[in-house]
């Protein structure tokens, strides 16, 4: 308990002038000091004396005897706070003054008792650390204790202001607790402990009113659609197309108008517009219907292989497949056949007449194997067609040669029935029937061009320049060794009549021309008046001359003199001669073998030869038309499928499938791979030819 002391200090020299109130540690020392002058033990005695005053006086033997005057002397006692044991004259050396100086103030504290306690202030660092270590349990305990204390608080507070001391103490304690509670909980309302009353009042509650409003619901329509992979794809495609259209902005406006116009049309005229859009679908359906009707033929075409060929040794047969006929072409005869190189099932038929007396109209008809009842395209012409050729690279361009000497080019992509280009008498048309046309490679200006040969003795090259046909005479066929048979001095015709020609497959400038006189001339595009070579081929007009597809030296020719001859162009005599007992209309090499070729005769037979198998006879001789009177006029091999088409003079085209024996590949020794490719074919032919060049005795 802190007790305040009052001290009267008499100043004295060398002693403390002030009395200091020391900060109190635990206890304060009560210092009673007296004057140092009288440092004797009498004070205790005196005190004892005073104390013993009421009792009998007992004088100790060694007590001082003092006079009464001395006894009455008053001695002043001063209580100072000076420590009697503290030295009064501590001296320190001062470096400044270089002398010893007495310290002004000397520590007067005397510690009587010292005890290290183990209490920590709650806000000190160490206390906080300890609290943190001990964690929550202590907090809760403090909370619990705090709540208890709060309860204690309230009754204390309720006591009022009477017990000030107690309340102060309680307040002090509660103050401590409330500090705790503050730190532990949220702030509680600090209430005035002395003068507090809680009084609540309630305000008027405004009456609640609800007010709502409803808008008109937006117009709704239900929409349903499916989201498929392809619908998404379609939308994207449309978007792309729209974007592309937007790029061509110039066309955007009129297109929109067109669309609107179209919409109107479709609404109003639903009947008439619809059918044009059905065209494509109708075509597909027609093919399907035909496929059903001719199902067995289609199956045969694809899959049938004549099994009996194994028993027939080396002979083969031709299986008739579709028959193509067109009503409007009934009186005409097939004068030209050509397969399309790009679309392997499409072929062109030229219809006209070989008969000099029966010249009339003609027709250009295209058939597809997929539909044998009706042609894909047909173009009626005023004059009979004698020859045609389809461009190898541009399958929509067809060159046609007419009986009246004109040549024309048709474009299949266009809808109109007239040809795109046609030669006229001004532009160098032939004066005699055109017997053969052939497309050539594009010239240097990328114009398409083709050649034609005619009975007027000219071989002409036609170039498609923009919208015109420009002609160039390549060669004029002159009679070699003219026989002057002209009656009565009429000069003999100096021009030969070309009846067929063919260009070499590899050597572009080299070509052969067959003439009506039965000669074959080997010509070059470079030389316009001279032939490279002439072969005395036949006795009658050369109907067809064809280079071999593989071997670069071999060509074949046929004529109405019943013969088919095979030549090596370096040798002036034929290598092979075949007599077919009837006028041979056409001959064709096969595209798959260098030794196979087929010929058609006027007695309605097709002869197929394979020189690799049989050098003297045909391996197949088969009549293919019903009536024996029909003459077969043309034959063509399909470049891909093993079928041939044969045209006759009644306007029919018959397709036939070659049996396996006719398509035989050379047998190799077992164990070796079958070599393929044109080299093999060339080698095959070469072998044959070499056999012939050897002396006759060694023929196998």
């Amino acid at each position, binding site marked *: 308990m802190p007790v305040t002391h009052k001290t009267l200090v008499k100043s004295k020299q060398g002693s403390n002038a002030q009395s200091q109130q020391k900060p109190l540690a635990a206890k304060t020392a009560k210092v009673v000091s007296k004057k140092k002058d009288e440092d004797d033990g009498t004070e205790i005695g005196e005190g004892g004396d005073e104390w013993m005053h009421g009792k009998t006086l007992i004088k100790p033997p060694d007590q001082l005897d003092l006079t009464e005057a001395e006894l009455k002397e008053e001695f002043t006692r001063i209580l100072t706070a000076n420590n009697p044991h503290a030295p009064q004259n501590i001296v320190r050396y001062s470096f400044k003054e270089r002398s010893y100086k007495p310290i002004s103030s000397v520590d007067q504290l005397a510690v009587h008792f010292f005890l290290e306690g183990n209490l920590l202030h709650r806000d000190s660092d160490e206390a906080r650390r300890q609290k943190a270590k001990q964690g929550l349990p202590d907090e809760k305990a403090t909370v619990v204790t705090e709540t208890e204390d709060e309860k204690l608080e309230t009754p204390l507070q309720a006591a009022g202001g009477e017990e000030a001391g107690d309340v102060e103490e309680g307040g002090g304690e509660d103050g401590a607790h409330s500090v705790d509670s503050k730190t532990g909980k949220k702030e509680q309302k600090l209430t005035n402990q002395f003068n507090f009353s809680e009084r609540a009042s309630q305000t008027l509650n405004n009456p609640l009113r609800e007010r709502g409003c409803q808008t008109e619901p937006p117009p709704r329509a239900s929409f349903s659609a*499916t989201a*498929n*992979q*392809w619908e*998404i*794809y*379609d939308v994207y495609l449309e978007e792309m197309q729209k974007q592309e259209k937007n790029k061509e902005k110039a066309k955007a406006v009129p297109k929109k108008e067109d669309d609107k116009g179209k919409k109107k049309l479709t609404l109003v005229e*639903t*009947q*008439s517009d*619809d*059918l*044009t*859009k*059905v*065209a*494509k*679908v*109708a*075509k*597909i*359906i*027609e093919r*399907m*219907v*035909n496929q*059903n*009707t001719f*199902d067995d033929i289609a199956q045969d075409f694809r899959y049938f292989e004549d099994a009996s060929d194994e028993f027939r040794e080396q002979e083969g047969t031709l299986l008739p497949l579709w028959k193509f006929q067109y009503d409007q072409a009934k009186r005409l005869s097939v004068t030209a056949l050509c397969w399309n190189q790009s679309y392997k099932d499409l072929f062109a038929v030229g219809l006209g007449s070989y008969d000099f007396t029966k010249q009339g109209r003609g027709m250009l008809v295209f058939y597809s194997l997929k539909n044998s*009842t*009706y042609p894909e395209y047909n173009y009626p012409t005023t004059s009979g067609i004698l020859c045609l050729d389809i461009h190898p690279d541009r399958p929509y361009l067809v060159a046609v040669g007419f009986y009246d000497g004109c040549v024309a080019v048709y474009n299949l992509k266009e809808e109109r029935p007239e040809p795109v280009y046609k030669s006229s008498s001004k532009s160098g048309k032939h004066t005699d029937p055109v017997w053969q046309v052939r497309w050539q490679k594009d010239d240097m200006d990328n114009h398409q061009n083709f050649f034609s040969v005619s009975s007027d003795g000219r071989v002409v090259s036609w170039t498609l320049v923009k919208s015109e046909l420009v002609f160039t005479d390549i060669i004029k066929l002159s009679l070699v060794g003219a026989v002057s048979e002209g009656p009565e001095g009429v000069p003999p015709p100096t021009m030969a009549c070309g009846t067929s020609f063919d260009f070499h497959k590899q050597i572009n400038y080299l070509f052969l021309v067959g003439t009506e006189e039965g000669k074959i001339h080997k010509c070059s595009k470079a030389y316009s008046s001279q032939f490279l070579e002439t072969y005395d081929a036949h006795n009658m007009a050369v109907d067809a001359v064809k280079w071999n597809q593989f071997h670069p030296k071999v060509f074949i020719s046929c004529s109405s003199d019943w013969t088919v001859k095979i030549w090596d162009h370096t040798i002036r005599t034929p290598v092979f001669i075949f007599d077919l007992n009837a006028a041979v209309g056409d001959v064709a090499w096969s595209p798959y073998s260098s030794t196979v070729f087929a010929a058609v005769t006027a007695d309605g037979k097709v002869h197929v030869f394979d020189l690799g198998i049989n050098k003297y006879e045909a391996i197949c001789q088969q009549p293919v038309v019903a009536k024996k009177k029909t003459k077969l006029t043309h034959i063509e091999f399909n470049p891909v499928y093993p079928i041939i088409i044969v045209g006759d003079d009644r306007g029919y085209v018959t397709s036939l499938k070659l049996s396996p024996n006719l398509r035989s590949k050379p047998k190799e020794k077992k164990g070796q791979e079958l070599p393929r490719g044109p080299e093999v074919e060339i080698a095959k032919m070469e072998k044959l030819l070499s056999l012939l060049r050897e002396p006759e005795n060694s023929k196998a």
Partner: protein
Amino acid sequence: QAEVEETLKRIQTHKGVIGTIVVNAEGIPIRTTLDNSTTVQYAGLLHQLTMKARSTVRDIDPQNDLTFLRIRSKKHEIMVAPDKEYMLIVIQNPSE
């Protein structure tokens, strides 16, 4: 346009063909050679089937599209060729 008419005529007169129906995009028959009730029945049923078939084909590969559909039954064969706007149905007896 006359060509299309001719083609349709040829199909109708082809061997074994029982009837042809042209149906528009909504499944309503426009042209037919059969009687009304049969036409409506064929058109409705085949339209749904064709849409389903087309959806199937395109789901597998959106760049692909249905070219035609053949249903061969004991008695005859139904051939459907769909188009963007129209559909052509032909019923044929192939064995005749």
